[in-house]
């Protein structure tokens, strides 16, 4: 199945994502989460509600979408932006292979930078009481798959992918999600939380979406976004800066 994964494309994407300053944001977010976790743990005792507050309110709601935006759009956006994607497209590699390879790298980076720190923070905060740490880590990992696919698609569709991605993550999920309950059904965060709800014991973690719906939506959104990104890349026009 060499047609789905191209090691050279993967290496280039990986280096573009973790090279220099972009990596600074990617490293600073998890570091901040762990710092908060340690500080809170030192000041207070192990407490399920506190752990839920930090992991649900900060890690899943703020950190994972932001890492998803940076990694997802960063995997392809800058190349399209400066036109160097032409050199990649000129090589005898299938466009769908390029997209899938970039997606795999983006998922890997997002998951590594969001799920692992979430797990660690969970263990620091309450020693995985009620499976909270594992539940949120799984939610972070699942969310990073969907976020990467969506934001990679945005990277191929628009030059303003970062802004569009942030509008989705901040305005749609955070602002509309808190005002209009219907908007929550169409939010990656809630789909991932549905999974976390299943894993976590007790009723601390709640989601507005039922588990089967969440799984179906997650899978179909990821697949549809990947397919569409592939077909967008096939008819890509590299325009000048407006």
């Amino acid at each position, binding site marked *: 199945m060499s047609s789905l994964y191209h090691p050279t494309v993967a290496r280039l994407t990986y280096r573009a994502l973790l090279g220099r*300053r*972009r990596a600074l*944001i990617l490293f600073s*977010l998890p570091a*901040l989460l762990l710092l*908060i976790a340690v*500080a*809170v743990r030192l*000041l*207070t005792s192990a407490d399920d*509600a*506190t752990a839920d*507050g*930090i992991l649900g*309110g*900060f890690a899943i*709601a*703020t*950190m994972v979408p*932001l890492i998803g*935006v*940076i990694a997802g*759009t*960063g995997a392809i*956006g*800058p190349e399209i*932006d400066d036109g160097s994607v032409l050199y990649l497209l000129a090589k005898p590699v299938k466009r769908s292979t390029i997209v899938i390879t970039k997606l795999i790298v983006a998922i890997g980076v997002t998951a590594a930078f969001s799920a692992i720190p979430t797990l660690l923070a969970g263990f620091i905060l309450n020693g995985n009481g009620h499976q909270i740490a594992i539940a949120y880590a799984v939610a972070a990992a699942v969310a990073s798959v969907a976020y990467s696919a969506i934001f990679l698609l945005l990277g191929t569709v628009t030059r*303003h*992918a*970062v*802004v569009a991605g*942030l*509008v989705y993550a*901040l*305005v749609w999920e*955070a*602002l509309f999600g808190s005002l209009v309950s219907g908007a929550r059904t169409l939010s990656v965060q809630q789909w991932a939380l549905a999974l976390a709800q299943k894993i976590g014991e007790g009723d601390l973690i709640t989601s507005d979406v039922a588990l089967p719906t969440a799984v179906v939506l997650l899978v179909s959104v990821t697949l549809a976004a990947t397919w569409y990104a592939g077909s967008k890349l096939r008819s890509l026009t590299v325009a000048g*800066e*407006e």
Partner: protein
Amino acid sequence: MPPETVPQQRADVIHNIGYRHYEGARLGRAYARRSLFSQSLRGAYGLGRSAKSKVGPMLMLAVMCLPAAIIVAVAVATQANKLPVEYTGYAIMLQAVIGLYTAAQAPQAVSRDLRFKTISLYFSRPIKTVDYVVAKFAALVSAIFFLTALPLLILYVGALLAKLDFAEQTKGFAQGLVSVALLSLLFAGLGLVLAAMTPRRGFGVAAVIAVLTISYGAVSTVQAIAWDQGSTDAISWLGLFSPITLVDGVQTAFLGATSAFPGEYGPSTGTGLVYLLVLLGLTAGSYGLLMRRYRKVGL
């Protein structure tokens, strides 16, 4: 006049390629600075740019104004005796939109000059580093101020139309204007410093929004925990660590605002002084950093 018909051909010229000196008026440094300011300000709302780049800023301006219009309509229809939102609370309520606007427009003001190296062309004109920095800074401050003050103006006009108490509304409106002016200074400063670090627009956008949201997310999470633990003193000090809570703290201490902190435990006047100093310090610091950034123009 085509080159062939230039009358007196000098004897020592081998080829006359028709070069002529500029003999018009030279408008000077102040004019260049003013032009840079007005171009940047127009650019921040997409004026003079492509139709596509007008969509974003105009949409955000509409999103900022729409709730104000609705609030006014409701207040007029129900003949309420006061507005349901404080003037000072409005910007805090819509901070996500202001953050997005700053993140989208700060890089557009500075990143492309760096990326396409037009910045060196600017400095081949009679402007100095200080002119460029002041013009860009002032333009972004004005743009954010317009974005945040316009909905307040809608609220104020609506309140007067609803025949609410004139003195009280005017005082609230003035307090709101001072608060959004401080907010504009702070956000523009932070946005420009982060955006000027990189020639990549996308990266600048991500950096600005990350600093604004992550710091707010972290602060409000820790504040909520402090609230659970009953340490109300900590709540009022924690607000120092993110831009929007900084503004919230200053206006709670000095501008009669109701704090958005958990349990409304905003800073007292003494603590508020620290907030104000930090806010002004950050603004001045951003200006200083920008001046340092543009001292040497290379990437």
